[in-house]
């Protein structure tokens, strides 16, 4: 089995050829699907646990604390212990809840996260789907997640859940617009919606440098709106602890709560991964125009490392402002979207169109 850390196409090709030489095409496809599914499950579980740990440590450092220190060295096993605790907890269903929708909601939320994660290219040859309309697929599917949140809030038969879900709905529907428009800004520059094409277009220079001013504005808008879409602070009023106990997942316990919790962190990863793919060049190494030596040194670092390096950088940025800014009120959130982000975004699209039209980009 040929394994090359710089390009995974040889690995996937050899697995495919090895399987299809032994088995029928149907069995090959089934086994390949299982392998891919297991790989995503494993990745999501491990990365989710890591993100929860990282969030607690980073948050602690921003507040001059130390964070978890007791379970394992530097508290490394803390999230694993938490996860085992959640698995063992009783699953409680409120008496007057809508049982079917109540049990369905966490699965909708987590399935949507898995669907979006499937189009993200981790490294050369390491992505599952590569549609012509990849970006459109991401925006379309990620907006389905709000249905899970609304169902969770509605079926719990609890006023906190309902208010939390309604806030979340208003917020996600508004900020969907900004995410979409900031991605459209970059599509104008990339001239394709195919994610592999977008990454390939950044071989010479990342789009955030290539598109200079409008790209930077689009990046900032995307980060703000993406944070709002994942219901993270400072836009976490859907689960504002001080007012709504826990918002839409107040009534959930055990593994169903863990699903919401995990989905929140996968969505954090998805927003960071999309920002990386569209603005920061995906798994492409950092290249500076004509510095051949520098470019070759950068090429030595595998694409997988570049991807995760950038994703973790964006995640750190999002954690940074989550733990710095106070939570916004409902009217402030809608003001920010409709009075500031949306006009800026529309103007930015015009600017980007002009830049591309007159060839003002690098």
């Amino acid at each position, binding site marked *: 089995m040929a394994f090359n850390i710089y390009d995974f196409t040889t690995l996937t090709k050899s697995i495919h050829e090895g399987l299809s030489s032994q088995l029928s095409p149907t069995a090959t496809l089934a086994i390949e699907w299982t392998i891919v599914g297991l790989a995503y499950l494993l990745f999501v579980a491990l990365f989710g646990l890591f993100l929860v740990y990282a969030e607690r440590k980073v948050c602690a*450092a921003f507040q*001059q604390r130390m964070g978890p220190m007791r379970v394992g060295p530097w508290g490394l096993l803390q999230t694993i212990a938490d996860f085992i605790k959640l698995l063992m907890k009783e699953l409680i269903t409120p008496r007057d809840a809508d049982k079917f929708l109540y049990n369905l909601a966490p699965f909708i939320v987590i399935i949507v996260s898995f669907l979006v994660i499937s189009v993200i290219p981790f490294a050369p040859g390491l992505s599952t789907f590569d549609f012509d309309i990849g970006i459109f697929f991401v925006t379309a599917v990620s907006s389905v997640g709000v249905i899970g949140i609304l169902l969770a809030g509605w079926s719990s038969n609890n006023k906190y859940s309902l208010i939390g879900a309604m806030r979340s709905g208003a917020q996600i529907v508004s900020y969907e617009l900004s995410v979409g428009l900031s991605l459209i800004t970059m599509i104008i520059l990339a001239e394709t919606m195919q994610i592999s094409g977008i990454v390939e277009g950044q071989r010479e220079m990342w789009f955030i440098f290539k598109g200079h001013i409008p790209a930077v504005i689009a990046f900032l808008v995307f980060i703000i709106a993406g944070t709002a879409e994942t219901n993270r602070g400072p836009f976490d009023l859907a689960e504002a602890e001080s007012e709504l106990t826990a918002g839409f997942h107040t009534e959930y316990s055990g593994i169903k709560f863990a699903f919401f919790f995990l989905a929140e962190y996968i969505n954090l990863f998805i927003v960071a991964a999309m920002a990386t793919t569209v603005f920061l060049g995906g798994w492409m190494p950092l290249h500076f125009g004509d510095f051949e030596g520098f470019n070759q040194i950068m090429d030595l670092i595998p694409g997988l490392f570049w991807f995760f390096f950038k994703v973790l950088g964006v995640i750190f940025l999002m954690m940074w402002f989550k733990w710095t*800014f106070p939570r916004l009120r409902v009217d402030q959130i809608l003001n920010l979207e409709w009075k500031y982000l949306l006009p800026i975004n529309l103007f930015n699209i015009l600017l980007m169109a002009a830049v591309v039209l007159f060839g003002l980009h690098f």
Partner: protein
Amino acid sequence: MKSIISYITEILKGVWTLLTGMKVTAKYFFTPWKHVTQQYPENRLTLKIADRFRGEVIMPHNENNEHKCTGCGICEINCPNGSIEIITKTLMTDEGKKKRAIDQHIYHLGMCTFCNLCVKACPTGAIVMGQKFEHAVWDRSKLTKVLNQPGSKIMEGVKD
């Protein structure tokens, strides 16, 4: 036109204030040696408790086993929840006069709210707040303490 300018300056000002906040937290993040959390049981030997910390009421004695308490009972009167009981005895002085002295200064640590009123009220400064804070015991009766040490007597020159 004026409104557009104010709109843009408002955005820039907002961004500036947000960046100021992020600068503060970044300073905290990148100076981890200044973090305030203390790893308590590990650092027990080097632990430094602030002088103003109110751990318990203590009565300092000097090397001759002498304290400053006259047994006046003002601390007992001032205590809001009756944590202090003063038991006095009568001594005969050399000149043949009767004189009040402390027999037992009983302090119920379990009831104390560490309000510092007894320390403030004490006319001779006989009791102060100590920094010891590990008060867990297996039996509640151990929380009742006698502050004056056995066989101790009042310091020379302390008058009520």
